[in-house]
């Protein structure tokens, strides 16, 4: 009986440790040196680059400055082709997010135009058939760059730029995949691999042919906070921002999670003591 009890405890504890270990191990899978493309299966996406983010690990939270810079990259570069349908402009003011001040959020909202509701005549379009527009408010979502999928396809050589709201969770490898793709355009195709016409070579993208032209270079943006805008910095910032777009409640989740874990550890301790006391006379 004693042995079975101990075994049970050991297995329970083992399960917890295994989960923690698996979690820690899963974040560290990569290599950073120039990959040897002749040694890997052609077309199979390379493992993501070894890049770390502030929001990793049990205590990791978003870096507010990186989120604000990442938003700038998104606004000035990405949003020209990619929509962000699930995120409201007002979300930028959230604590645990970019945390812009209410005045900044209002100013950002005012820089967007969105389709207006019907006017006093009940019209939603002007005399030329163009939709009536109004200035956006923080309650509006980011307006998409194209009217519909067909327009997006027409403007992008047949490819539809994916919506960015969930991209950091939808891509295998997460935000590190975004970072790897954005910084992965500078490699030469290995002998025998033909880049499809109108496509770009990127071994971090499945199939190695990507329709997106290299989106960022050194100095693509001029950061308002004075940070030097290297390609690496921009890619890292925008990957951080896109992770926040995909998982805006991460900070709150980890904070509550820590409280829950501490509570459960104490509860388990009390229950274990009660258990030993109740069973004391039985063995």
């Amino acid at each position, binding site marked *: 009986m004693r042995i079975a009890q101990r075994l049970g405890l050991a297995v*329970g504890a083992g399960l917890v440790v295994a*989960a923690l270990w698996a*979690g820690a191990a899963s974040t560290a899978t990569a290599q950073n040196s120039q990959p040897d493309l002749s040694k890997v299966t052609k077309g199979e996406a390379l493992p993501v680059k070894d890049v770390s983010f502030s929001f990793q690990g049990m205590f990791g939270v978003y870096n507010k400055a990186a989120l604000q810079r990442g938003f700038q990259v998104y606004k000035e570069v990405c949003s020209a082709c990619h929509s962000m349908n699930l995120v409201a402009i007002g979300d930028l003011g959230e604590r645990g997010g970019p945390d812009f001040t209410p005045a900044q959020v209002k100013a950002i909202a005012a820089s967007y135009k969105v389709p207006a509701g019907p006017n006093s005549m009940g019209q939603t379009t002007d005399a030329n058939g163009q939709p009536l527009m109004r200035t956006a408010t923080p309650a509006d979502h980011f307006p998409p760059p194209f009217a519909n999928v067909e327009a997006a396809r027409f403007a992008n050589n047949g490819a539809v730029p994916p919506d960015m*709201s*969930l991209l950091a969770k939808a*891509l295998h490898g997460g935000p590190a995949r975004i970072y790897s793709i954005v910084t992965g355009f500078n490699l030469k195709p290995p002998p025998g691999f033909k880049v499809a016409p109108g496509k770009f070579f990127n071994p971090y993208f499945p199939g190695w042919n990507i329709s997106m032209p290299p989106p960022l270079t050194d100095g693509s943006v001029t950061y308002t906070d004075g940070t030097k805008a290297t390609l690496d910095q921009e890619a890292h910032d925008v990957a951080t921002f896109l992770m926040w777009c995909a998982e805006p*409640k991460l900070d709150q989740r980890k904070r509550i999670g820590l409280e829950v874990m501490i509570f459960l550890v104490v509860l388990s301790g009390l229950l274990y003591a009660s258990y030993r006391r109740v*069973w004391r006379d*039985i063995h």
Partner: protein
Amino acid sequence: MAGHSDYTPSNGFSRWLDTRLPILRFAHDTMISFPTPRNLNFWYAFGAILTFCLMMQIITGIVLAMHYVPSSTLAFDSVEKIMRDVNYGWLMRYLHANGASMFFLAVYVHIFRGLYYGSYKAPREVLWILGVIIYLLMMATAFLGYVLPWGQMSFWGATVITNLFSSIDQIVPHAGTAITTWLWGGYAVGGPTLNRFFSLHYLLPFVILGVVGLHIWALHVPGNNNPLGIDVKGPQDTVPFHPYYTVKDAFYISLFALLFAYLVFFKPNFVANPDNYFPANPLQTPPHIVPEWYLLPFYAMLRAVPQKLMGVIVLFGAIVTLALIPWLDTSRVRSLRFRPMLRPFFWVLVANCILLGYLGSKEPQAVWVIGGAHIELLWVARVATLYYYGFFWLILPIVGLIEHPLPLPESISKAVLGGDAGVAAAE
């Protein structure tokens, strides 16, 4: 539900109620005074853990259903609305999604525990079969639920699994296609499919709850099996369920919740397929369609068979086999503690099931290179499938006939306490 009741109503109201609806007596007899073998170990806590999981899924599920919209154009966005705009919606959804994984983790431990200690043997065959039915209902519920977020894997998983029924065409021409069309509510997976899957996903958990009630009823007639696999001989072999097992189960539930909380709060997408964060797109098939981890062993079996109908038969046969175990095992000894010949085969079965799960997650044409030798995973899956069937249909009946079991202890109290059982058993 079994034996005499030692319930004494403590006040006027409970005396009045007891002669009209003896519900308090029932609760007392099943949850407080129920005589339980005194030697149940850690592995027996999973019954209580599973009850915890079921309640967790039902409560979080009901809250999610208040915000979810079962429409092919709105489902994906409504789930994201839950994640972003509903207060603690992210918590409800991550609890529910990871809760399914924890539920299956617990049920697999529970099933293997039952196998190890021979809990399926007389007089507990009905109890075991009810368990297999619960497991089957759980798989159906999990599959239906996985479709609801209407992501890429939801859509294509639904397409693959519902298409299994079209294999019936090979027995009765057109019947399979007709069934599939009827399931879909159209000629492809679409809005009507999502709508009915939502309806069924809300229904089945309550069916599970009902069968769990029967499962517990069937447990309380013969009482618990125990790690020794021998019958309870008298009161010295048992302790009342409360407080002995309520406190023990509570402790293990708390440990289980710790692991659960770690997943939910720190690795909420650890077991999720990233592709499901892309909205369903009927025009774009994902390169690699895989079910959730808990269904992977069956997926491996399905793909191991080259012929579609036979694959489906092997898949469902694997579950039907489980229900027949009480009659496939020919040994009179329950616990594998006393069955040295079967024990290694059991552990190979456990490893084999984990291997099948791994194989189900790999591309069907994948190859292992071990020391220069190329081993096709397809063939590994075939061997593993054969072992799964072989264990239940050959090893279990044959070993039971030829094995010499170790001598069984005289009684639970003797085994637990050593010589002078009766004296030390005083509570």
